[in-house]
């Protein structure tokens, strides 16, 4: 391994426990009660996004995100701007205590307007480091959509492909605006590994449209090891891996290496307990001899499911461990 960059995984807590850190919560409540308008809410969202970026930069991360602080959930924030997709009731998000709103597909899924472009440009203007943009993967979108049209009934591969085509339109816009890191998240794949070929096809569509941006595939909250040989061949520039749910993955990579750069999710993004840096460094030392080039150190998943103070402590630990690793290698 030539270099190890500390990077954000994806989302980040939008509020904390101090009154200052709760302004977005208050603004959303005011907006829901029509005490403030869209512009005022947007202003607070932008301000919080800038603060989240600054927090990540202060921690020492080399790639940051806007924390996805505007997202209601991983599905509705994207789906609400697609044609023929409505938003339905709440459902638990995998094995978390977080709930998302299910997309309801009533006709052909089509891109109709920019979704993340404005958010990205705000983030990019605020950041001094590259900004990562995250998209919920086409397969995960499809897997959790309620299908109300014969077009997709029993045809998840078709729905996945149409989500991928819609995302490709979005990606082209983002790349034109300067996007350099795109992360596509497919946690649903780990619960339905038999659908790996469907995900591979969707990634090909995105890869063809990503231009110079680097495309990362993030897998979390399930065992990656059974899919390891498949995903090594997929058309992505990086694999971002959750090691907390994959007990054998470290051994597999330590033995066989990786054909692709990795985002090493060795810091638990779901539990408050802070990792012992020495233990993480030992794990990195096992991986390093079999990995070439530059890799990323990150958390196992986004940090939104942690309290803000613990999320901050986690990214500080990511940065500290990456620095120690680099120092040790010098």
């Amino acid at each position, binding site marked *: 391994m030539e270099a190890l960059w500390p990077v954000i995984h994806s989302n980040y807590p939008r509020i904390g426990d101090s009154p200052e850190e709760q302004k977005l919560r208050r603004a959303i409540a005011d907006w829901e009660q029509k005490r403030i308008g869209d512009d005022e809410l947007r202003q607070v969202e932008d301000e919080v996004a800038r603060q989240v970026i600054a927090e990540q930069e202060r921690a020492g991360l080399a790639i940051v995100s806007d924390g996805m602080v505007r997202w209601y959930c991983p599905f509705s924030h994207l789906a609400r701007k697609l044609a023929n997709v409505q938003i339905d*009731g709440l459902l638990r998000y995998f094995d978390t205590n977080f709930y998302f709103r299910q997309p309801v597909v009533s006709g052909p899924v089509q891109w109709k307007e920019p979704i993340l472009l404005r958010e990205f440009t705000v983030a990019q203007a605020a950041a001094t480091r590259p900004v990562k943009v995250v998209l919920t993967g086409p397969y995960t979108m499809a897997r959790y959509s309620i299908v109300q049209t014969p077009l997709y009934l029993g045809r998840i591969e078709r729905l996945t492909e149409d989500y991928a085509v819609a995302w490709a339109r979005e990606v082209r816009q983002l790349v034109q605006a300067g996007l350099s890191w795109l992360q596509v998240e497919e946690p649903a794949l780990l619960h339905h590994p038999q659908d790996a070929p469907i995900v591979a096809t969707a990634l090909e569509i995105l890869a063809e449209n990503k231009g110079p941006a680097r495309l990362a595939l993030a897998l979390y909250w399930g065992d990656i090891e059974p899919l390891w040989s498949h995903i090594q061949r997929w058309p992505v520039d990086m694999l971002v891996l959750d090691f907390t749910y994959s007990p054998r993955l470290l051994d597999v990579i330590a033995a066989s290496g990786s054909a692709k750069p990795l985002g090493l999710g060795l810091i638990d993004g779901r539990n408050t307990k802070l990792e012992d840096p020495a233990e993480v460094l030992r794990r990195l030392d096992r991986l390093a001899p079999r990995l070439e080039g530059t890799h990323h150190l990150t958390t196992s998943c986004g940090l939104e499911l942690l309290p803000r103070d613990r999320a901050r402590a986690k990214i500080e630990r990511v940065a500290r461990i990456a620095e120690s690793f680099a120092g040790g290698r010098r």
Partner: protein
Amino acid sequence: MSRGKLKALGLDLPLLPTTAVGSYPKPPELLEARIQFQRGAISRDRLEELERRATEFWIRTQEELGMDVLVDGEMYRGDMVAYFAERLPGFEIGGLVRSYGNRYYHKPIIVGPVEWPGPMTVRWWQFAQSLTDRPVKGMLTGPYTMMDWSFNEYYPDRKSAVLALARAIHREVEALIEAGARIIQIDEPATSVRPDELPIMVEAMEVVLDGLRDRAYFVTHMCYGNFEAVYPDMLKSPVDNFDLEMSNSGLDMLEHFRRHPYTKDISVGVVDVHTHVVEDVDTVERRIRAALEVLRPEQVWVDPDCGLKTRQVDEAIGKLRVIVEATRRVRRDLQASGPSA
């Protein structure tokens, strides 16, 4: 199935008993008082006075609406896990974490061995029951959900944490029974989160009810999960009644009940608690009748999908009113047609 047990416990309930899941909205003056208390601006006694007043309001409201089995409305609780974590040694309260949309909760952290500190809910149950002749449910959060909705920095694995919590909650159930509670609800909304861990939930519930099964009627509430992943195995849990959110998910569990008969009692969620819209009586009546196509009337209780604390007071009352009215319509028809086969 358990009507004999209810009778043996001295509970003579009508067909299709109406109830609620647990929480009701706190009146504005109580919400304000909780903020003032957190700031140290009012005393514990003053806050409790308002909590008692609000509890009394909800007991009277439920009586006036004609509900059969009442709840205290949890006026003294913030969050269903944090309330217990604040009282159980071994926990500390962590920072705010988002549950959905703009809703957040203080997610507890297990930092040491969990122990029962003495009664945590008994005094409030006694107060609520003293206000009414109708049965009031004892309300607890189950060990699996307590574990799953907490961070764990102490126990080596999830099962160890769940079983330690089960032993503590067993003591609380025992205390409620000794105080006179005959219907006790132990909520496990996290049950379907990891279907492979269902045996842990069942084992923990056996610990909770150990030696107590004949002394009370036990309900478990579950909501917003992948029920089909744990059905029918969830029926192995030793409780008498599963209280299920069903309206928000379009009553889709009924299809599973058609394929594999449901064998326990069930509290069917017939109004969606996540919408400001109060359903009309016809809609709720249709939902009850749909449930009765696959369940026997003797099995069925009727209630909202989940706690109503996120609704406005008038919305919550409106939803309870339509539940009672729709249930009465169906009950009248059932009584007119005689006992079911």
